[in-house]
């Protein structure tokens, strides 16, 4: 299956590449969009072939990254529109979706999107109690109570009685 991205069908003038996800689906992407990823750019410089297989990025994540790349490769859109697209892009997404996105953008080296997604993930953790973070992300506390108390004592300056949200 070849999914055409919004930039239109393969034309003689516009070069395109096909990117295959780990699920086996293939995405047709314009070269101008693909090279916004530093990793893909390097691969395209080295190889003549126009099929790239990404063994660790699933369909859903890859589709999102490609939507981002295509939007940012569109010269017709203003920078303001692109910025508001970025905000829309990460808003309301589940933490796990963001997690796979941040891994994919890290692998593909899409610096701007990696930044936006990481910032969104940090926003979720901001102003939260440690207990909330543990609960939310299923982090198992493998410290003994004594060890944890010792760490809190060593970095006592970070543990003033500031009120944090616990919801």
């Amino acid at each position, binding site marked *: 299956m070849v999914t055409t991205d919004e930039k239109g069908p393969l034309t003689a003038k516009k070069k395109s590449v096909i990117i295959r996800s*780990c699920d086996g689906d293939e995405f047709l992407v314009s070269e101008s969009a693909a090279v916004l990823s*530093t*990793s893909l750019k*390097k*691969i395209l410089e080295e*190889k003549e*072939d126009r*099929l*790239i*297989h*990404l*063994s*660790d*990025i*699933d369909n859903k*994540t890859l589709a999102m990254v490609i939507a981002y790349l295509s939007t940012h490769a569109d010269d017709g859109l203003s920078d303001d529109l692109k910025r508001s697209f970025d905000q829309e892009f990460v808003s309301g997404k589940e*933490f*796990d979706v963001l*997690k*796979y996105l*941040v*891994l994919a953008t*890290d*692998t593909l*080296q899409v610096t701007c999107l*990696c930044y936006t997604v*990481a*910032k969104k*993930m*940090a*926003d979720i*953790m*901001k*102003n939260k109690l*440690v207990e909330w*973070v*543990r609960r*939310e*992300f*299923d*982090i*198992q*506390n*493998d*410290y003994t109570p004594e060890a*944890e108390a010792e*760490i*809190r004592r060593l*970095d*006592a*300056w*970070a*543990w*003033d009685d500031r009120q944090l949200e616990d919801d």
Partner: protein
Amino acid sequence: MTIHKDITLFGEQISVEEKHNVDQNRDSIFPSPETRRSNYVDRISVLPVHILQHILSFLSQKEAVQTCVLSKLWRHLGSTRPNFEFLEGSFQENNDNKFLSVLDKTLQGYRDQDLCIQEFIVWMSWPDFESVSVLKKWIPVVALNMRRLKIFNLCFLGETRDYFDIPSEIFEAKSLHELKLEGCKFNFITNKVVLFKHLQTLHLTRVYIEDETFEKIISSNPLIEYVTLNRCEGLKTFKVSKVAANLKDFDLTWDKYDHDIDQDRSIEIDAPTLETIRIDGSESPNKWYHHQYRNYFPHLKSLYLRNVQLSPKSQIFSSSSCNNFPCLEELELDFSRGMEEEFQLSSRSIKRLSITVEGFEIKAAIDVPNIRYFYFRSDNFLPSISSFATNNNSTWKSDLHLTFNINIDDTLSWFLKLHQMLKALSQSEISLYISPSERIIEDVVVRPLPADTTYEAVAVEHLYCSRHGYEDSWSAYSTFVNNCYRICYPRHLGLYEYLELERQKQSNTSSDNYGSAGWN
């Protein structure tokens, strides 16, 4: 989905591990993903260390350090992230936890484990003996050993003139992209010193820096894009030459309380890549030298000049030299001297124009066919706008904030000037705000416009005639408002004036003064 960082190309594994400038040491002190994967994996810890630290870099230092107790994996993540960020203001000091000793201890931790710092951000109140000694010990280490240092930001926020002498090693931080200093002093630098190489942003607030040092920094950093100089001392001439081949944004603000206020300063800018220039001359006598016909700003979009004397006088925006600003969209001239004479502005690119004048009268001929918004504020005089040419078919707006000076000899000519100005702007949606220059005393009379003359009333979207100041003389206010209605008909009134008008209408229905005013 697994977390291998490999890209497969036709079955051929291409390792992209090396692409990340991951600190090898940093990864080695944390459990490897393999070790982690064999154990219990939660929703977040599957992420590699450099991504976790990237996420943590958006938190405050305090929040980042708190994550150390989440689990053993997180033990050193938050306290060794690549951005070192210590803000005294967010630090609650007590006897056991001095800001400086925690800062010292944390930096020692980076040093002991040979970890890199990419962003060094320290804000404190003012330099004292103790803080100076701690910083003098660590700044050379950070500047010379941290090979990936990108941002160096040291601010002393207390408004004191005791500058911190910044160690000259900072100039040797070759990887630095951004230098932000506040309350520091550059000492004289010798020719030997490397003055960065890759600086893109220079942001100095209350920094003592001399002409030579500034010019050297600019000339040895061709990549520089943003320069902000805010209330700096020691500079007499600003020369930004063509050497700054990537400069986009230049922002200069003088200190209002500058000791050398009487000294004449000059600004010479000749960087054709500039997109934004903002110069706030505050109270000191600045001259902006613009060499007509020579200086060309093909990319300049926004120009803001406040209390800057233009040189050569006022002609820089005339039709002959406005070609030097072919992309200028926003022009803001604020109390700027050098406009006393005939002010000519001719530009096809300007979309927003803002002029504020204080204490003098201007005569202007303005030709801006593509204007979208015009703002004018004057404390005293009305401008004589001989023409305001536009060919804009779409709606555009103008905001006029005027002061009515009751003491001027000829109040009638004031209204005639206002009428002329409104006519010049009649293609726009006008909002007109008028307030008296001072409290009107009881016996002052505002002369009504001659009853036998008909004025071509200009449509005005909003009219606000402030009643504040007329408390002792409502008859003066009434005449004033009546005069306004003779020359313009407002579609909306300020609420207060509207009630006033309704009252007048009821008491004097026979009067036809407002008859032509056609409100909605």
